């Protein structure tokens, strides 16, 4: 029997049927899917996971469906890489990199979209849509194409060219909006009320957000059904950050893992850090900002799950930090040079925050740390342009020896 129960308001507890609805009628609070895991046998669940497909659907017992849907494009099961050279560079004991760039459209957004589109289809939608800072646009366009759904993708006009190209290619209706992501989001909220469309991060958002839990399940499974001590993760809306914790909490409840919830550290870019600012000021609501950062995938000035991200950081003894654009570029370089993983600006933010925590002495020598790298470096090439030198030579050994004089002599 499936464990999925209802939608429940995180603010006032009001319950609703499992329909396309994202905000509570009574108080406007966010709705979240609830489950009853009391009938779930731990060993049975573990067997189904280990015998399951190489995709998020291996965790179907913990997703909002009566039975696992069929989806055309697999998402999830990304590598968890032990990053000893990065750990050594930062003076840390044990660091793991969860590399979400290995997903079909090269970011963690494939996880949320595969779940959202399966639910949108179940609810009868023939058109799907989203407000995106880029990665979601790629994912919605691709998964809609694979599923044979019509799609509309709304993005801010100043998006990186790579993300525009990697969206349009799938044959979506690409809409570039003159405004910030928050303007795009407002527009989509208004459109969602007018059209019979499944907006993955508006009216289908409670289901969409559930997809992020699979990142937590995977980390735990890849660590041999153990929890890490600390998670460092980027914060844009705060949805991924809080849902990773929810995933760990569910597995603790079912008994698939034991021990305390990890410490959660959120990472933001200084040019768009409403959650870090609220955390620092001891507030529980975020004051919206107008973003100005190279980390465009994190450029959400009015983060929907900000209050819950702050709460999570506080109750696990973590924090929310922000880093400058220069630190972001250095973070991209540090990860690439020590792990062979080339990440986009969001991953630069996360790596830079890890470096900051290490420098500040916040991380114990015996801690097992997981760094959540959400996306691919090829999507934000401008961030590394000019960061290294290319030697141009004539095709002769002499020319090479001249260019690399020191190396040539010593070899």
């Amino acid at each position, binding site marked *: 029997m499936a464990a999925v129960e209802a939608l429940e308001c995180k603010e006032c507890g009001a319950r609703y049927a499992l329909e396309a609805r994202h*905000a509570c*009628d009574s108080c*406007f609070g966010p709705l979240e899917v609830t489950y009853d895991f009391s009938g779930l046998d731990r060993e049975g669940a573990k067997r189904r996971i280990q015998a399951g497909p190489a995709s998020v659907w291996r965790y179907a017992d913990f997703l909002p469906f009566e039975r696992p849907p069929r989806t055309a494009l697999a998402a999830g099961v990304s590598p968890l890489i032990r990053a000893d050279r990065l750990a050594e560079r930062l003076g840390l004991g044990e660091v793991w990199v969860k590399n979400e760039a290995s997903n079909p459209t090269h970011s963690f957004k494939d996880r949320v979209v595969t779940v959202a589109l399966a639910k949108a289809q179940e609810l009868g939608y023939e058109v799907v849509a989203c407000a995106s800072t880029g990665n979601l646009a790629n994912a919605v366009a691709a998964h809609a194409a694979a599923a044979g759904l019509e799609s509309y993708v709304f993005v801010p006009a100043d998006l990186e060219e790579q993300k525009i190209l990697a969206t349009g290619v799938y044959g979506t209706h690409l809409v570039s909006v003159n405004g910030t992501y928050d*303007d795009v989001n*407002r527009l989509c*909220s208004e459109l969602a009320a007018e059209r019979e469309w499944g907006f993955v991060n508006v009216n289908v958002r409670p289901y969409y957000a559930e997809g992020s839990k699979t990142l937590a399940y995977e980390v735990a499974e890849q660590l041999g059904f153990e929890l890490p001590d600390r998670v460092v993760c980027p914060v844009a*809306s705060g949805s991924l950050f809080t849902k990773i914790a929810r995933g760990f909490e569910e597995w603790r409840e079912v008994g698939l893992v034991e021990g305390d919830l990890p410490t959660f550290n959120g990472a933001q870019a200084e040019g768009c850090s409403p959650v870090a600012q609220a955390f620092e000021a001891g507030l529980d609501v975020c004051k919206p900002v107008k973003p100005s950062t190279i980390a465009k995938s994190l450029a959400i000035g009015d983060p929907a799950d900000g209050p819950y991200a702050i709460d999570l950081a506080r109750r696990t003894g973590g924090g929310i930090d922000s880093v400058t654009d220069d630190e972001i570029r250095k973070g991209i370089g540090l990860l690439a040079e020590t792990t062979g993983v080339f990440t986009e600006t969001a991953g630069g933010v996360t790596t830079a925050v890890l470096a900051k925590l290490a420098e500040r002495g916040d991380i114990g020598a015996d801690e097992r740390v997981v760094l959540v790298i959400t996306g691919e470096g090829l999507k934000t090439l401008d961030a590394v342009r000019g960061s290294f030198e290319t030697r141009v030579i004539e095709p002769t050994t002499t020319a090479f020896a001249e260019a690399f004089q020191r190396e040539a002599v010593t070899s």
Partner: protein
Amino acid sequence: MSVTVKIPTQLRNVTAGDAETTVDEATTVGEVLDGLYDRYDGLRDRIAEDGDLRRFVNVYVGGEDIRFLDGLDTSVEDGDEVTILPAVAGG
């Protein structure tokens, strides 16, 4: 003078299905909302708490979030459009 207000689906069961309405004689967003509270029974409790907006309610004037303006004191002029929306979207 008259201000147009766009009402989200979440509130339409207290506005008798109205998706849009107009408020006359209001000079600030706060006064626009007061006009709505007078007209629609039960609306105030849905979006306001202790004299302020609930934390997951966003209000815009001409597409700009009032938190970037003067909040409930933001002035409105004839022909302005005020939009109420749930904050929980996106990301």
